[in-house]
């Protein structure tokens, strides 16, 4: 029988080690990508066209492609997601509708990304071919928009729920209408939370591969319209690594991608802190 004090010590060492291992894993992944990618990353890597079929040169088409799909995804998911959250918090009571929407959003959030890929292929690429241009950046962007919708609904919903009840009542007490109260009290106060949700959705959209993998083409050309096909950082990274085309370009791309994600995460946190400090005053 081990003495309770001894087992207490052993257990605590184990708990410390488990936390330490998380940090080590993170550092080794980030460190590895930085070390391997730093050699290829440069201004011209980001701004130049690829040459020799992605083996050399830059990755400009993939950057533009990523940018376009994220913009499309956000312009679909932001108004609908924020609008849904306004309705759920301001226009209805807790009940069957709010519960159903929450379950639907959670389910949507849990759907495997490759299933979104299958769905996007059947729905946007084939069923709505005449409107989306088939395997286009628009199809890819809308598929991602469907995917990040739950993130935006849930974060906006939470943000609006924390708006102070008394301030809303004061607004009504001054004779403001529901729309005026939403515009002047609810939206400004929930703004930091909403923005954080949008940035989170953006990070998710830019980092996803499987939902759009069936809709991209590897032609190293700058996409001219959103109805044409294109390529993104993630899908390009997949092909470079899977086919073993060029590990140098692959790691340069990985580093670009991870840098974007880190910046997004960092600004989401900063913005949240900044706004919540200023609003509390």
């Amino acid at each position, binding site marked *: 029988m081990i003495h*309770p*004090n001894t*087992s*207490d010590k052993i*257990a*605590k060492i184990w*708990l410390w080690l*488990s*936390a330490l291992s*998380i*940090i080590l894993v*993170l550092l080794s*992944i*980030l460190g*590895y*990508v930085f070390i391997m990618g730093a050699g290829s990353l440069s201004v011209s890597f980001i701004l130049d066209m690829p040459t020799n079929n992605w083996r050399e040169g830059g990755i400009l088409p993939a950057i533009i492609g990523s940018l376009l799909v994220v913009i499309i995804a956000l312009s679909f998911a932001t*108004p609908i997601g924020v*609008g*849904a959250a306004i*309705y*759920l918090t301001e*226009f209805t009571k807790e009940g069957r509708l709010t519960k159903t*929407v929450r*379950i639907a959003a*959670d389910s*949507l959030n*849990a*759907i*495997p*990304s*490759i*299933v979104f*890929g*299958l*769905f996007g292929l*059947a*729905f946007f690429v*084939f*069923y709505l071919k005449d409107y989306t241009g088939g395997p286009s950046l628009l199809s890819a962007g809308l598929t991602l928009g*469907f995917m990040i919708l739950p993130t935006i609904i849930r974060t906006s919903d939470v943000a609006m729920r924390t708006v102070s009840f008394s301030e809303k009542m004061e607004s009504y007490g001054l004779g403001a*209408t529901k729309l005026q109260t939403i515009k002047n009290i609810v939206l400004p106060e929930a703004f930091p939370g909403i923005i954080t949700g949008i940035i989170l959705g953006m*990070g998710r959209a830019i*980092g*996803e*591969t*499987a939902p759009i*993998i*069936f809709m991209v083409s590897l032609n190293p050309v700058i996409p001219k319209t959103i109805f044409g096909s294109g390529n993104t950082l*993630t899908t390009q*990274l997949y092909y470079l*690594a899977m086919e073993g085309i060029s590990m140098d370009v*692959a*790691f340069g791309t*990985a580093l670009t*991608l*991870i840098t974007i*994600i*880190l910046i*997004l*995460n960092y600004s989401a946190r900063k913005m949240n802190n900044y706004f919540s400090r200023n609003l509390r005053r």
Partner: protein
Amino acid sequence: MGKRLNLENTIRGILLLFSTAALVILAIIVVFLFKEGLMLFQHTSVTDFLFGHKWIPAENIYGAFPFIVSTILVTLGALLISVPLGISCAVFLVEISPRWARELVRPAIELLAGIPSIIYGVFALIIVVDVLRVPFNLATGETILAASIILAIMILPIIISISQDSIDSVPRIYREGSYAMGATDWQTISKVVVPSARRGIIAGVILGCGRAIGETMAVVLVIGNVEKLPLSLLDSGETLTSAILLEMGEAVIGSLHYNALFCLGIIPFLIVLVLSMLSSRLITKRVSRFE
């Protein structure tokens, strides 16, 4: 006044429409996934599909059993690693971590959750696969174990954050009662805190499990992609998701092969849906019990 009320009603209508969007999208996904997938069963029986050992698209033979077994093995392997590690880490953060360590570990977990799956895949393809090859004396490190390891890392943030919330909400008085009886920290953690938080911990593990089943990119790069029945964690395999990814390019639209790949997608879709509902039930029940 009447005009204003009109405007409010119009906006209310539009917002109501938006609020049902998640539900509508879920419905469209179900319709399209099942419409394409279920066509397979006009040709292959459900039992042949679920339990057939051979997958030969050229001969229209579609048995998904090897993919199902690979998926189960990969997920079990990932849980085996991440559950003990994740729960320990959550316990550490809530119960014994000093402030400075918490402020280091929490952002690390957030970052880990934000790293795109394809980057995990590339990392695993180069590092994990190589690390495994030597000690196990394998011809190739591209095995189920390699996929399990990288999936374990990917689902750690989910398991940690949900267990942590649940451990955090265990009333302080439980702990104080335990200390008053002369229990050590560890006795309190293992006999009082973790058992009281078990619902939330299980919910986190279930969500992590769902994520592991549905993950594609990190798995496809390291699992070897061999369409045969894997017998151990050191065999190569091919999961449901990686099969879809690899074969969709060759499948002719509307062909039986195309339908079969959608059918492969239905399996993780249904499993993950059930798991997600199960875990949210566990979490809401816990909340209402404490309120």
